[in-house]
Structure formats: structure tokens, C-alpha cells
């Protein structure tokens, strides 16, 4: 088998090589500089390669070498707190090696070979091991225990196992058949890691964002899409989710993102404290940053790199959330490469396999029983950037066929500075039923009904608004004016949330419940008062109504709300007289 060939043709990121024996998705080193590429087509003795780095100046005839491996990531301690590019090269290492700008031909391994980790075995000599079993632990960051797994393809009986400080590529365990295990394993990114079985998600992902937790929840292990035109707050919402979601591990993929926004994430995440542990958020985060001007093929790979890392932590028994911002940029990378390959285009120039790739990706989410017997989950939240904000385009449509939750961002709301600008009429969640029992047990048996009432009111408001557009609000009967007012209170007091406010940025379930319940009960009381003959003008003027507007910003929420509820009682009692 020949593993040396040469370049035949170069056109941007697509290079055709000849005389090299390759398999699909083999990683090859292209040219004198050894640029990393991946085989994506084979014809005769020629193979088509997508190259992950800039190809300017590369010439036909330069040598090509086949590594014989598929594009893989290194999995082991040291992933957390890392910042990678699309093919798992740590950006800080790249900066050290080539300065402030990304140059090419530099390789950097995903995990540090220098750092030593304290390995504590949980198995002993003579134990039988199967693929995916846990053999020991490493304290990766203060609150995350990294569980060292047997690679899924290996099994056997332990002949020796060590304890103490090791580097990731040092042998810590040998099996009777002579196989050696290290703390690090490699896994090809395009292949899902195996699990024992997939399970149905039944627990909500708590995000602290009222419109998400309250109206359109996603389950742990579920999938959600956030499509929205530019400027509608997609990235802020994604970042809020990354910051506040109650998963143990967060994988954030900036795929074709803006450089400045990525810089913001890189600066902010190490500063933010995890609300539960008080430790920096970065200690449970893996960031993948492939900005829009970095090579397009690496952008295509970044999504797979991210989900493989997520699967690895899931296999340890963790709940992982994965944010991909934006899947449209990923699909465009596919389109760009496809068009360079002169493939027959499907809808809007996207390759015909777009839908298949999207569903393969989202199917890697889910709640599972891992090979080790532990339960873990991956929740995938994908941002979609539909051109012109038009949801009928192929990526949005293909995504909606797969995901269970749809958070429709709305540019109109964003223009009014209603944030998060998620449209409550167009969005949906298919998990509300499945999560019902959890809410009954953990929030309140009233919660589901309360939420449905609120939704109904908002729906009614949108119908009334059509009339108001024609005749003005004063022409409506009083009870409908009241409906409008209560709906406005739900929108402004409950749904609007300020991501930049220190208190309001995260709202626990209990607070959400109390806040919504107070607004709804104000509405009920007002309705009763109205029926009892009180004037609508007087009701509208009540102080308790205005107080409710600002209570979400209070540090001592319960105390403040208590005061308001008392005022409310008094005021309505007075109205009766």
C-alpha cells in the first residue's frame, strides 16, 4: 500500500491528489508544509481532499502523506477550560506558536502532553473490563471529576493498574492480552460513540430564562432550535443558555462566528461564576471557536468535534448541553465545499445530503444509559440564521423536522427592545406534556395550569390587538381592556428579562412560579373588582401593578414580593368599598 502521493490540482480548500491509496475520511498531510486535510472523494487513483488550512502558494507535485486515521479528537483530562479551533487545536497554543494571526502548517495536540494528572483507580487487578467501563477518576477541575473510560472497542481482564501522577499518554493500566490503556483515547468525530441504550427525556433543562423555562421548556437530552434574523438576539440567548443551564458540562461551538463576539465569550466565561458552585463557569466548559474568516473546512468539522467531546462527558454520566452557533454557517460550509466539488446542488445550492447531515447531528443528542451503566444526556441547542429572516429556507425547515423545541426569535420584538425577543405565539415545545409530572413534583401542582392560562391570555391578546389596530383600545369593553393590560403585564413583567442585570439575568424556577402567579392573581382580583362595579381607571392606577413591574430586579425577591402582595390585598379591598 502506497502512502505517499502528490498534489494534482488545487482550487481553494479543495485539493486533488494522485497516486495515494486512501479511504474515505482519512486524514492526509498535504504539501511541503504538511497542511491537514481530509479525504472526501475518491475516483480512480485520484482522491479529493478538503484542506483545513489556507492553500495559497501550494503547488501541484508537492508530496502528500496519508496518516491512515480518520479525523479524530483526543479525549481525556484537560478538555475542560480549553479553547479549540474547529479541529481541536488549542488556540492559546497556536498563539504561542505563531503569534496573533493564524498561520498555517502548525500542528498542536488537543490535550497537553506535559501536564500530570492525579489518577485514582476504581478497579483492581483481575477485574474484567468492557468497553466504556470506568477504571478510575481524575479531579479535572475543582467540581468536575473526570472518569477515565475504557475505549468502547476494548475489553479484557486487568493485569496491572497504577495509581498516582501521570501524563495523558502514559500507560496506567494493562490487560492480560497485553493491551495498554492511557488516560487519553482518540475517537473519530464523524462516528457517534456507542451507548447501551437511549432513554426518554423526562427532566427539564433549567435555564433561568423565564420565557424558556416557563413557556417553552426543553428536556435534558432534548433538541431545540433558535432561528432568527440577524440582530434578533440569537447569540445573547445562546450565551445565556451556556452560562445558566443546569447541566454539568457545557460545550459551546462558535461556528463561523464573529471574532469579536468570540473574544467576548473568551473573556467573559472565565469571569462568570457558576450560580451553584461559585466557581468560574469556564471550569465546566469547552469552547470551540472557528470564526467566519478561519478556513471553511475546519468550520465544517467544528460541529463534529464539539459533539464528540460532549458524547465523551455524557459517557461518564454527566448532563451536557451543547450550543452550536450557528448551524447555518455549518450548512453553508457544506454548501461551499460541495460546490467546489461540482456536486449536483439541491435546494438553494445546498447539497442534497443537507437534511441527512442535520438529522445525523441532532440524533447524537439524547438521554442515554452509557456503556458504563451511568445515565447521561446531551441537550443540543442549535442556532439557525435564516437568510432574510425567512423561516421557509432549507436549513430552518430541515431543522424543524428534527427538533422538538422551537424558539422563534423575532426582529420586531428586538427592535422594541423586548428581550429575549422570542415570539410567544410562534414558538413551541413538544416536551410540555412529558415534563408535567416533574413540574408537579418540583415546582407546584398549579404550575402547568398557570402556564396554560398565561398562554391563553397571550393568545387572546393577539386576537384583540387586531381589533385595537382598527378601532383603538378605548373602544373595547372594559373586561377586554383588562385582558390587554394583564397580557401586557405578562409580556413586560414576566417575559422580558434583562440579560445584563445582575439579578434578573438568572431566574430560578421558584421565582418564576411566584412571579407569574402574582401577575395572574392580580388579573383575577382585578376581574372580580371590575365585576363588583369598580371603575377600570381606578384599577389601572393601582400601585401594586406598577410595583410588580420592578420586583424581578429585587435581590430580596421573596420579601419584596410579600410586601407587594399585601399592598395588592389592601388596594383591592379598598376598591370594593
Amino acid at each position, binding site marked *: 500500500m502506497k502512502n505517499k502521493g502528490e498534489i494534482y*490540482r*488545487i*482550487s*481553494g480548500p479543495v485539493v*486533488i491528489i494522485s497516486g495515494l491509496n486512501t479511504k474515505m475520511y482519512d486524514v492526509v498531510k498535504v504539501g511541503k508544509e504538511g497542511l491537514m486535510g481530509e479525504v472526501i472523494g475518491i475516483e480512480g487513483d485520484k482522491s479529493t481532499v478538503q484542506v483545513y488550512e*489556507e*492553500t*495559497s*502558494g*501550494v*503547488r*501541484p507535485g*508537492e508530496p502528500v502523506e496519508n496518516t491512515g486515521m480518520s479525523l479524530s479528537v483526543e479525549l481525556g483530562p484537560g478538555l475542560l477550560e480549553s*479553547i479549540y479551533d474547529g479541529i481541536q487545536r488549542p*488556540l492559546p497554543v*497556536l*498563539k504561542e506558536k505563531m*503569534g*496573533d*494571526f493564524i498561520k498555517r502548517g502548525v500542528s498542536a495536540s488537543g490535550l497537553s502532553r506535559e501536564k500530570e494528572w492525579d489518577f485514582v483507580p476504581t478497579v483492581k487487578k483481575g477485574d474484567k473490563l468492557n468497553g466504556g467501563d470506568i477504571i478510575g477518576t481524575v479531579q479535572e477541575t475543582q467540581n468536575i471529576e473526570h472518569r477515565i473510560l475504557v475505549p468502547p472497542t476494548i475489553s479484557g481482564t486487568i493485569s496491572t493498574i497504577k495509581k498516582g501522577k501521570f501524563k495523558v499518554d502514559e500507560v496506567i493500566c494493562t490487560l492480560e492480552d497485553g493491551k495498554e490503556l492511557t488516560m487519553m483515547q482518540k475517537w473519530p468525530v464523524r462516528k457517534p460513540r456507542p451507548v447501551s441504550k437511549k432513554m426518554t427525556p423526562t427532566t427539564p433543562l433549567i435555564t433561568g430564562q423565564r420565557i424558556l423555562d416557563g413557556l417553552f421548556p426543553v428536556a435534558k437530552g432534548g433538541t431545540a432550535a433558535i432561528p432568527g434574523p*440577524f*440582530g434578533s438576539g440569537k447569540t445573547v440567548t445562546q450565551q445565556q443558555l451556556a452560562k445558566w443551564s443546569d447541566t454539568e458540562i457545557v460545550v459551546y461551538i*462558535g461556528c*463561523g462566528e*464573529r*471574532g*469579536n*463576539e468570540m*473574544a467576548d465569550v*473568551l*473573556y*467573559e466565561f472565565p469571569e462568570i461564576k457558576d450560580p451553584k458552585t461559585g466557581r468560574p463557569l469556564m471550569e465546566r466548559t469547552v469552547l470551540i*471557536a472557528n*470564526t*467566519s*474568516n*478561519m478556513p*471553511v473546512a475546519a468550520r465544517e468539522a467544528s460541529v463534529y468535534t464539539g459533539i464528540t467531546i460532549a458524547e465523551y462527558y455524557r459517557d461518564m454520566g454527566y448532563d451536557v448541553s451543547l450550543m452550536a452557533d450557528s448551524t447555518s*454557517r455549518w450548512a453553508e460550509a457544506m*454548501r461551499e465545499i*460541495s*460546490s467546489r466539488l*461540482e456536486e449536483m446542488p439541491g435546494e438553494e*445550492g445546498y447539497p442534497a445530503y443537507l437534511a441527512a447531515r442535520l438529522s445525523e447531528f441532532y440524533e447524537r443528542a439524547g438521554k442515554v444509559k452509557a456503556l458504563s451503566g451511568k445515565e447521561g444526556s446531551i441537550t443540543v441547542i442549535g442556532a439557525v440564521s435564516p*437568510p*432574510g*429572516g*425567512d423561516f421557509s429556507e432549507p436549513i430552518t425547515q430541515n431543522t424543524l423536522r428534527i427538533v422538538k423545541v422551537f424558539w422563534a426569535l423575532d426582529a420586531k420584538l*428586538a*427592535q*422594541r*427592545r423586548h428581550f429575549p425577543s422570542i415570539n410567544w405565539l410562534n414558538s413551541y415545545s413538544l416536551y410540555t406534556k412529558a415534563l408535567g409530572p416533574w413540574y408537579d413534583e418540583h415546582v407546584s401542582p398549579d404550575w402547568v395550569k398557570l402556564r396554560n392560562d398565561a398562554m391563553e391570555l397571550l393568545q387572546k391578546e393577539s386576537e384583540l390587538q387586531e381589533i385595537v*389596530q*382598527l*378601532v*383603538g383600545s378605548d373602544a373595547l369593553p372594559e373586561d377586554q381592556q383588562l385582558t390587554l393590560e394583564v397580557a401586557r403585564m405578562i409580556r*413586560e413583567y414576566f417575559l422580558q428579562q434583562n440579560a*445584563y442585570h445582575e439579578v434578573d439575568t438568572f431566574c430560578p424556577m421558584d421565582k418564576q412560579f411566584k412571579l407569574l402567579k402574582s401577575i395572574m392573581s392580580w388579573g383575577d382580583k382585578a376581574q372580580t373588582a371590575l365585576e363588583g362595579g369598580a371603575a377600570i381607571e381606578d384599577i389601572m392606577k393601582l400601585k401594586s401593578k*406598577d410595583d410588580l*413591574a420592578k420586583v424581578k430586579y429585587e435581590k430580596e425577591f421573596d420579601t419584596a414580593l410579600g410586601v407587594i402582595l399585601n399592598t395588592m390585598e389592601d388596594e383591592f379591598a379598598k376598591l370594593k368599598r
Partner: protein
Amino acid sequence: MTKEYKTISKIAGPLIFVEKTEPVGYNELVNINLPDGTTKRGQVLDTSDDIVVVQVFEGTGGLNKECGVRFTGETIKLPVSKDMLGRILSGSGEPLDGGPRIVPEDRLEITGAAINPYARLPPKDFIQTGISTIDGMNTLVRGQKLPIFSGSGLPHNEIALQIARQARVRGSNEPFAVVFAAMGITNEEAQYFMRDFERTGALERAVVFLNLADDPAVERLITPRLALTAAEYLAYEHDMHVLVILTDITNYCEALRQMGAAREEVPGRRGYPGYMYTDLASLYERAGVVKGRKGSVTQFSILSMPGDDITHPIPDLSGYITEGQIVISRELHRKGIYPPVNVLPSLSRLMNSGIGATRTREDHKAVSDQCYAAYAEGKDLRGLVAIVGKDALSERDKKFLEFADMFEDRFVRQGIDENRDIETTLDIGWELLAELPEAQLTRIDNKYIQKYHPAHRAKAEQKE
């Protein structure tokens, strides 16, 4: 000396196909010698053992199969020097002002490598443009890329020039430069720009690249890259804060489409190439601030939306890369308001990190949010008034309606040479908000109302 090939097999549009060459590098610069002794330049688009495809920058007019082709063995580089300031250069970097050629201090690749995201500093320094709708409502910060979305016949050039004149970093004497690149603009527009640069003395701190409407379209693809390379050089080697003005991105994209068609590529939306997003990103993303370097590159591009359609692929893809947009409104322009910036669809994504107590003023965000909300409501009410008449409105609604009118008249409208500092802008905002009932100012913290609201301000100042 490199070999000269006389093996052109095909000429199609701006492309030539050369056979039987020794290995030629991708993106390599090419010189083509015409029979009449002139030389044209080109760039390798596709290279293989059998055939090399070259795009010719000055167009293929006058070329035949007898032309000699030389491959230079290097990619396109721009000779750079600090003496470029004050110079006017062509779209391919040759002097147009009759001055000498640039004596290079360095020669830089024009494609420019991507900044490692880890090496970036999040932009947060306020740039004052002196225009209320930008400073107050859609603040520009150093290292940002903020385009103007305009349309044909709208005064985007005036606005760009006003910004080029007035832009400054407050309270600092750090050197500031403007790199101006025109792509496919008419001779008349170019004259206008030049005159204005000279009139205001802005030219001495500017580098100008001009690719005019009758210059070859292919050249348009390198003009912005030359400009950005010059900007990066001034920013990162000479510690200057550089504002890059690119106009008009739409012409650039047309050239991109033309090249795509010539290469018989599979077209994407509306015939634009599928890689237009990546290509535009390779321009826009060259804005930024790098850790440990003093200079910065800020971009202010002008983009005319075909048919005023913000969903057209050019503004659409741009909007996904740039950090916001300033939208020029035909409606306001017709009303005679200058600058006709429609603040509602406009946005600066980096605004929040560039404003506040230490950068502009503590009440900035609150004032801006409240003006946004009130103006949006007032504008909605205009629609209602058209149906039911003004008398049917409640007192509260009437106030908002009036607010919208006043906002356009006093906040949006300003003189072409009127340079408002941020305090003036915010104070105008307060004066207008004071016309609304105080209880309606729900987005402003009470402590700011006490301090800045005209009704309380005198008292607050007395106390101090």
C-alpha cells in the same frame, strides 16, 4: 528569471487558461506580457498539472494566444509605508495623484491571516462620531465593523464623510487615521470625496484607494484587501487607530458574482456565489483589537441595498457578519431629515460594552432604551392615526405620537457639520423624554430620573 509561457489555450471573460506549465502555486501572482509591450497582472485561481486558470485584474481586453505569461512564484503583496498617508492610489495600489511610487518599508500579503480569537481583545472603547443617532442609539466602538445599509439616491456618502471628519476617541491624543477604499464608484462621486477630503484637511491623515466604475471589475476584488492591509499595517506597526471606510460593498459583490459566472461555478442565491459569506467575512473580520498592540482597525462600510431590500443576499450576509448596522431610511430622507437614520432596524451589537459611567455616561443605556421604546410606540400609533384619526387617541398615546415627531425633528436631524458630543446627544434625549409622563419612563432607573430628568435636574445640581 522565471520562465515565460506562450501556451494560452483559452480566454473566457476575465479568465485565461494556460497549458503545459511547471507546477504553479495556488493564488500566485501572474504577469502577462501583451504583444504591444504592456503588462497586465493576474492571479491563479485553479492550478493542476495540466492547466492553470488565471484571472486577469485589468481585464482580458487586447489579450491573444501569443501573450507571454510569467508566474512570479509569490502571492500578491502590497508595498506599505507610513508615507502612504495623504496619498491617493488606484484600485490596484498604483499612485493616482502624480506623486512618486511608495517606497516600501515592508511588503505584506494582501489576503491577511485571520486573527486568532484568543489574541483578540473585546472592543469596548467608545468612538464619538458626533452624530446623535449613532453615538446615542447605536454606539460605535473601536475594533467594530458597522456598515451603513443605504439605498441608491440616499445621502450615505455625506454621512460617511461626516464620520470620517468627526470621528475621534474621547480624551486621548492617540494617532487616528482613515483608510478609504472606493469600489466601482463613479468618477463624479470620487471627485466629491476627494474635494471633501481636501476641503477639510482630512486627506493628510488618510490613505485613499480608488477603483472607479469603469475600472475592471476584477480589480474590485483586491481593492478592499489592499485597503485593509494598509490599515492593519498602520494599526499594528504604527500604533494608529484606523477607521476603514469601504464603499460600496454592493459593487464588490457584483464583481464577485461576475467572476463566479466566468468560472462557471454553481450559483447560490440570486446568482451570487455560495462562498460569498466566507468571502465577505474575510473582509469584515479584519476589524479588531489585538491584545498587546496599541492600534486598532474599525470598519465602516457602505452598502447600498438593491431595491431597499434588507433581505437581499448582500445586506443579509453582511448583517450576519458585521456587529450591527446603521439603516438609512428613504422615508426620513423624503421628509427632509438629515442624517436620515432609522434607528429602529439599526443596531450596534457592541454598544453595551462601549457605554456607561466610565466610557460615556451612566444613564446612556437607559436613555437609549427608553427612546427606542417610545419612538417605536409613537411610530406604531401613526399607523393607527391614519385609520381612526388623532382625536380617537388617549392622552397618553397622543404624547407618544408627539414624541415620535419631536424625536425625528430634534434628535435625528442635525447639521452636516454639526458635531454633537455625547453629553449633548443624551441631554437632547432627556429633553424629549421629559415631554412624556414620568410614570411612562419604565426603562429608566429612578436614580437617573432624579439626576438627569430636566424636571429634577436643577434640584439635583443645587444639592451638589
